[in-house]
């Protein structure tokens, strides 16, 4: 048995009774129509790899890389198999084996390093990047690239994604944000806001609006210093030790804040924070602190719903539909709060999206790395979106939001529909902005 094999969660795989109840919900099984793209198949492969019957790199890596990590299978499983644990263990083993064999292309390794080690742990650098994007979009450079068709030459279909990016915030707006915002009416709770990476650069405005919404329902909001990336991208790529480092920095930063709740507005980050106690369970001096931290994590929507009602001023006379963020729904079990908030919007007509709980195929950087499968999943999703005839498509996670924007373009719906973050829409109804 080699070292990587030992990282595979063999015991957990025994809980799977192979009933297949998870098959009909798995988005990759639906589009690829074979067992190796299903939870049941993947679990069987992890078990086989742990028993040394198949090779971690040659046989396990492919099917695991194709998993979105959406974890809807976990919700469907009658035997309560912790698929998340199995997946994370598999990724860790694959990551280790890949590093040892230097199995990835130099470009991929360089990009990974850039993203995971140089970029995400440093909020300032992401903001700088967002500034460059602003410049690119505002100076006509973007149009030039599009007209000349340069984007075709970018790796990982980046051109297509770049075109779907929202307008980056004006770089100077990053400065001068207060570290504390007082509640607008009687104080109901003291909350610490998790700013995130992408949310705090590209979606800086959404963060600002989220904080204002919290204040509007009576939450004193602090932005703890020293917080960093949640580590989800790292953990999902099998880089557990990097993820742990980030987790510890966050726990420390938020402990100092003395807040009742830790609030996120990104489903993916929220799920990661809420599972810090799993991540750190094997480190006795951290396990308890992680547990306490995880218990305080809340999604923005649940607090707004609980402390509301929001002071709506403007009618949103539109047809609205909602796409769940997988990690918000399947890991944090937040399903009704965002919907209730939408229903409370004056003037809005809310329609349920058929299969709203199904992944859109964005899944971190899955859409870059597994472009083809991701687009198959997305195109299926957009068919359901088209059926709703909605004008506004709401999500609660930056990755989903970008993917939805891309989907709208792919489906040719740009003139009929826009995708927004829940906080943006609620804020618009409260301020008319």
């Amino acid at each position, binding site marked *: 048995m080699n070292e990587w094999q030992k990282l595979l969660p063999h015991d957990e795989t*025994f*809980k799977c*009774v*192979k*009933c*297949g*109840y998870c*098959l*009909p919900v798995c988005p990759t099984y639906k589009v690829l*129509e*074979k*067992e*190796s793209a*299903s939870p*049941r*198949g993947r679990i*069987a*492969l992890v078990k*086989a790899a742990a028993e040394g*019957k*198949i090779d971690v790199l*040659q*046989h*396990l890596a*492919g*099917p695991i890389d194709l998993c979105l990590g959406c974890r809807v299978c976990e919700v469907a499983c*009658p*035997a*309560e198999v912790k698929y998340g644990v199995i997946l994370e263990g598999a990724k860790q083993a694959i990551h280790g084996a890949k590093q040892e064999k230097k199995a990835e292309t130099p470009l991929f390794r360089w990009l990974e390093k850039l993203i995971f080690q140089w970029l995400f742990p440093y909020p300032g650098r992401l903001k700088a990047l967002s500034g460059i994007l602003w410049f690119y979009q505002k100076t006509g450079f973007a149009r030039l690239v599009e007209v000349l068709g340069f984007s075709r030459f970018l790796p990982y279909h980046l051109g297509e994604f770049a075109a779907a990016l929202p307008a980056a915030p004006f770089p100077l707006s990053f400065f001068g944000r207060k570290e504390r915002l007082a509640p607008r009416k009687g104080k109901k709770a003291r909350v610490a806001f998790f700013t995130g990476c992408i949310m705090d650069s590209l979606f800086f405005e959404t963060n600002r609006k989220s904080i204002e919404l919290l204040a509007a329902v009576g939450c004193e909001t602090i932005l703890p210093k020293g917080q960093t990336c949640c580590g989800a991208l790292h953990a999902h790529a099998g880089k557990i030790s990097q993820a742990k480092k980030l987790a510890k920095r966050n726990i420390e930063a938020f402990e100092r804040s003395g807040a009742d709740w830790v609030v996120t507005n990104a489903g993916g980050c929220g799920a990661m924070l809420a599972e810090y106690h799993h991540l750190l369970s094997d480190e006795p001096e951290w396990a308890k602190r992680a547990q306490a931290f995880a218990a305080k994590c809340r999604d923005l929507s649940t607090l707004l719903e609980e402390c509301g009602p929001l002071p709506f001023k403007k009618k949103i006379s539109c047809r609205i539909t909602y796409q769940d963020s997988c990690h918000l729904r399947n890991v944090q079990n937040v399903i009704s709060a965002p919907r209730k908030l939408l229903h409370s919007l004056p003037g809005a007509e809310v329609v349920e999206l058929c299969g709203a709980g199904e992944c859109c195929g964005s899944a971190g950087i899955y859409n870059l790395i597994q472009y083809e499968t991701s687009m198959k999943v997305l195109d299926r999703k957009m068919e359901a979106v088209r059926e709703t005839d909605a004008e506004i498509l709401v999500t609660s996670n930056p990755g989903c939001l970008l993917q939805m924007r891309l989907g709208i373009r792919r489906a040719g719906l740009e003139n009929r529909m826009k995708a927004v973050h829940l906080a943006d829409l609620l804020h618009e109804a409260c301020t008319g902005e």
Partner: protein
Amino acid sequence: MGLDPSIVKELIRITDEERVLLSLDERYTYAFDASFGTYLPDVVVFPQSATEIAEIMKLANREQIPVTPRGGGTSLSGGPLPVAGGIVLAMTRMNKLLRIDRDNLIAFVEPGITTAELQREAEKAGLFYPPDPSSSNVSTIGGNLAENSGGPHGLKYGVTKHYVIGLEVVTPQGEIIRTGGMTVKNVTGYDLTSLIVGSEGTLGIITKAVLRLIPKPPARKALMAIFDEIVDSGRAISGILKNGILPAKLEMMDQASIRAVENYQPSGLPLDAAAILLLEVDGHPAAVDEEIRKAAQICRQYAAREVRLAADEAERAELWKARKLVSPAISQVKPTKISEDATVPRSKIPEMLERLRQIREKYQLHLVVFGHAGDGNLHPNIIADSRDRDEMKRVEEAVAEIFKAAVELGGTLSGEHGIGTMKPAFMEMELGSAGLDMMRRIKQAWDPNNILNPFKIFPQPGQTRVVLTE
């Protein structure tokens, strides 16, 4: 081992590159079902039509390659396991609903459609497809036909075999034949449709099915009856049926399953009860009201300590939720579940329950009983840990004794899960040697080279017991 490259090429010619899976990882994911054992196929093929399958069968016959059809892979008896390697024919992409004919109340389907999908489509047309195995979200109609599956609705509405009136089948030698037709009544020649149903993929590959639908019953009502003695619940079942009430569903849970559910997800079940019955009637609203009232009265007559009537649809769903939780709840205790489905005549239910209790004590196992009590199809489930060899040996012996008890009481080895690789050793006990021999001869007539799903149903020389340890 492994297939000759020329055969692989031929398979790709018949289908296409994308539908022939050869890599070890792909093959590993078709090496199991929901029962025991892992058997690697040499290749997995996704056919898309009867003609393709006919060509594959001709090739397999010529080259003597074993072929195993597979649907959702939910079999609890090893049916789709490629025991001899060879080709797994994965039927899941032949999954179209071809047509629902509302005038004649029939549906034409491809075999890979899931049971639940057909049920939904029937419902949309205002109709009803009653067979309801609990695996319906995953299991395919092809698998249901091959195993003759049933569910709670079996008591009143029957099982899969009662809803099939015609089939298109590819024979092991690669001929496409049609059995039955589009009419409920049909006596032209031998009833090959019935022969194929329940044949566990050993006689032919089903490529199309003509299924009977019925109008959807307009009303339904449910109750839960709580008993202090498990035998009383058995008597109540007979009492209800004797009094001319035919419930749409009649299920029971014993104390061990009640406790497991309450531990797993508190549902307000009485922990001290020895058994509970769950009963549902459906039909015309007035008849439904009358029947549920009468059923409640009979339960009380047979010493039910409490009868809970579901007042509305929500409460009805709540009652059934407890039953649905049994399966997940018991798998919390230990990871390996051995689901048996030995079935006895209804009148023998109390006796069978007693025998099961003795077996549990003798072998010191975690044995839980729940199931379709109304039709005598009890589900004794043993919960164990496949990593514990000693325990698994005891399970093997206990299972053999369960089969023996069922047959001695005039029942059968399997009510709905099939024989597969799990129960061949006991076939002769139930059928006698002449009976088993007749079946063997039928198999030989259909499949002279024994290439279609070999090592199933019929015992191999020297095979005398269940083997659960790998």
